């Protein structure tokens, strides 16, 4: 039954957000036959939802900005956990990446003198975020999408990759299914780039969509690649909290960038207590923890959040600079934000951890496998600054595309794989249809979300992390006995059943890495280890990998920065 003709590419990119599109454009511009696969329709990836902007030291608004300041802000925001080479390349190359987007047709908001306008954001010393109102991600994905399809990239929409195919330790292809028909598809490629985004769907309150099921993280792990920094999960301080249907939906940081104020139920600007200098524009880890504390100590709003207010700003300015927030609250919560405050609270938003990559090329620790974007680790350390993701996608998407092209050129012999891998993948995917009874994948996912939300959330503790690890084991047992109704045709229950495996694998890695790091740093806060440990943990990166079929967790020491970069922190 598995006599598929593999579709051949030099470079196969999995994921069509900003990172995947940029990687595919680069590989194809270098003359390689490039394929691009995504789970949703083209243009619907998470990147489309990004609101606030893309960070780059263009110095159009604040003349003193430059790459060194951006680099420094990024490292300080990441609590020095960042891979400094990535943070350096990112700060240096982001401006050109933004200008390139402009040359490809992106129409950013303008300064008085006709250049790209930049706005303030948390943790950025200067006004640095190039933006289009509060729909920057849409502008970015559309620009890349149109560039990509006109360059002859072959796109496979609504197609999910479930397995990487390997030959003697090298990745040589991928296996997946068409969501529409449920039929299987096999790709053979000289290099595969993962750009699958994040892991948010393992949490109950999240700004992330159904797509974020940790697929890329799990695919890389199963292929033997190393994951790093997985304990660092970002909770964005401001998600909607009311009504229940919208809980978790993002309220962009641009609201604070444009002058929004945070207050508790006593009408106090509570950030004065926690970060008197940067106030509302402190880093996300700190603002989230502060909100958490205010609510815990009884100074929260009726639905367990705090107030975020822009009603002191001129109404027309709010509508012009934050149009989608204006509509989001008006349409979904009956709140006119030009008159009344918004009720907000933390929402799981982004994963800093991911596939360990080489800063220059995006290569993972497995030959033939590369990664870029949110599913790659290292760039953001223990806490990502707002706006640094969109720039990350462009800078490292391009680098991974180039890296994949080079690898494919250097390995131009025929890439193969044992067809038994394909047959095994098929069996694994179809087994759920054979069970006459079993668990609903939706029920298992809900239990998982509750578990992660309550025990591996903003504030952690050894005993709760251990509990999560034990419970995850039970959940994996439940997930081994799923039952799926209906046919293979566009069947979300069947799809979720597979996604669950990925989430369960990665959830355990998040919990174990969090248990391992006995300190508090950035987005990782331990009640039982409240201090930041500058002697031991500051120098260590957590890793997770599969060895002899078993999960192995450990630490490795971080590389030293060269003196000229070190001096920036003096």
């Amino acid at each position, binding site marked *: 039954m598995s006599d598929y003709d593999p579709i051949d590419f030099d470079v196969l990119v999995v994921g069509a957000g900003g990172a995947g599109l940029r990687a595919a454009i680069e590989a194809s511009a270098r003359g390689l036959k490039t394929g691009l696969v995504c789970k*949703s*329709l*083209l*243009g*619907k990836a*998470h990147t*489309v*939802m990004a609101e606030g902007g893309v960070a780059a030291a263009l110095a159009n608004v604040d003349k003193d900005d430059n790459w060194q300041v951006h680099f420094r802000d990024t490292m300080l925001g990441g609590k020095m956990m960042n891979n400094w080479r990535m943070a350096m390349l990112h700060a240096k190359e982001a401006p050109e990446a933004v*200008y390139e987007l*402009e*040359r*490809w*047709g992106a*129409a950013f*908001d*303008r300064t008085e*003198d*006709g*250049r790209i306008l930049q706005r303030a954001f948390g943790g950025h010393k200067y006004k640095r975020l190039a933006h*289009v*109102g509060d729909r920057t991600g*849409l*502008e970015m994905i*559309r620009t890349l999408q*149109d*560039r990509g*399809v*006109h360059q002859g990239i072959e796109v496979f*929409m609504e197609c999910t990759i479930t397995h990487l195919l390997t030959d003697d330790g090298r990745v040589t292809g991928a296996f997946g299914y068409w969501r*529409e028909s449920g039929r299987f598809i096999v790709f053979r490629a000289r290099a595969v780039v993962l750009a699958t985004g994040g892991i948010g769907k393992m949490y109950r309150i999240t700004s992330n*969509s*159904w*797509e974020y099921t940790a697929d890329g993280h799990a695919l890389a792990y199963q292929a033997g690649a190393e994951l790093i920094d997985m304990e660092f999960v970002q909770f964005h301080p401001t998600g909607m909290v*009311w*009504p*229940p*249907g*919208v809980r978790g*939906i*993002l309220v962009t940081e641009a609201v604070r960038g444009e002058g929004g104020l945070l207050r508790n139920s006593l009408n106090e600007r509570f950030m004065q207590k926690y970060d008197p200098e940067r106030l509302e524009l402190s880093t996300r880890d700190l603002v989230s923890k502060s909100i958490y504390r205010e609510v815990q100590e009884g100074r929260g709003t009726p639905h367990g959040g705090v107030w975020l207010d822009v009603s002191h700003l001129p109404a027309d300015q709010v509508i012009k600079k934050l149009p*989608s927030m204006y*509509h*989001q609250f008006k*349409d*979904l*919560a009956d709140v006119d934000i030009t008159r009344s405050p918004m009720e907000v609270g933390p929402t799981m938003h982004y994963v800093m951890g991911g596939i360990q990559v080489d800063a220059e090329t995006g290569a993972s620790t497995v030959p033939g496998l590369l990664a870029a974007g949110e599913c790659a680790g290292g760039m953001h350390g223990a806490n990502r600054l707002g706006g640094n993701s969109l720039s990350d996608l462009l800078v490292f998407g391009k680098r991974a595309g180039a890296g994949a092209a080079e690898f494919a050129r250097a390995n131009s012999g025929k890439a193969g794989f044992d067809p038994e891998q394909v047959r095994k993948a098929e069996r694994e995917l179809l087994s759920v249809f054979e069970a006459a009874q079993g668990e*609903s*994948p*939706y029920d298992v996912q*809900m239990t998982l979300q509750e578990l992660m939300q309550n025990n591996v959330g903003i504030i952690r503790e050894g005993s709760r992390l251990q509990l999560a690890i034990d419970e995850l084991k039970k959940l994996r047992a439940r997930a081994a006995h799923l039952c*799926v*109704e*209906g*046919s293979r*045709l*566009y*069947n*979300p*229950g*069947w799809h979720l059943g597979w996604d669950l495996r990925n989430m369960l694998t990665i959830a355990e890695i998040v919990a174990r890495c969090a248990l391992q790091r006995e300190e508090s740093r950035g987005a990782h806060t331990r009640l039982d280890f409240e201090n930041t440990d500058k002697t031991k943990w500051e120098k260590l990166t957590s890793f997770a990998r599969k060895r002899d079929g078993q999960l192995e967790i450990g630490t490795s020491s971080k590389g030293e920065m060269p003196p000229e970069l070190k001096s920036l922190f003096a």
Partner: protein
Amino acid sequence: MVQEEGRQITVRILRGEGVKTQEVEYQVAVEPGWVVLDVVLHIQARMAPDLAVRWNCKAAKCGSCSAEVNGKPRLMCKTRLDDLDLTKPVVVHPIKTFPRIKDLVTDVSWNFEVNKKIQPFTPKKDAAFIYFQEDIDRVQEMRKCIECFLCQNVCHVLRNREQYQRFVGPRFFVRLAGLEMHPLDDADRLKQIEEDGIFLCNITKCCTHVCPEDIHITDNAIIPLKERVIDKSYSFWNWVLQPFSSK
């Protein structure tokens, strides 16, 4: 029919594969502030695990969840239950203009094929990329499009007359307008715009009415494009006729 405890509403969803479809009724206990998409996802998680539906952002930003709710083309994630008459069943159908795949999912791939044929942004040689906000206000309006294809769905030229070969539909006039109006774009798409069927549009404005992004599709995209095409052909005839008239 499936029933649940709690504050009840009745929902009827058109289910089935291809042309074999029928409405299936569900009784759902709803929570305050729910939108239609919440109900559909709830039904999927609790009662109909194989119910096919597209969504991503749940915040009207990605254009995935288009459907016809009580006969009106809407984004399900932007349609509050509070705004519907809940004494009657809420009826959810897929958008009609495109072929049905399963349940609420339709085959919109034609749109992606059309898009490939549009000449992309082509800046003037050595352009300095200095331009002002007022130069791009209109361009930005066009670029707000989230590709929900609701305008394509309601446009009668596509819906009833099925002119897929001769008419690209309002969504792509919006895209073309965004390109044509960009201060630095140097390509000439007017001939293509005429071939794309712009004169088949008779300004019914149905597209504008359904656009969730409030893009003034007819007034700000289609009419200006028509004018440009007409101006261009007049100037062409002026040029041809010039030698005669000057005699």
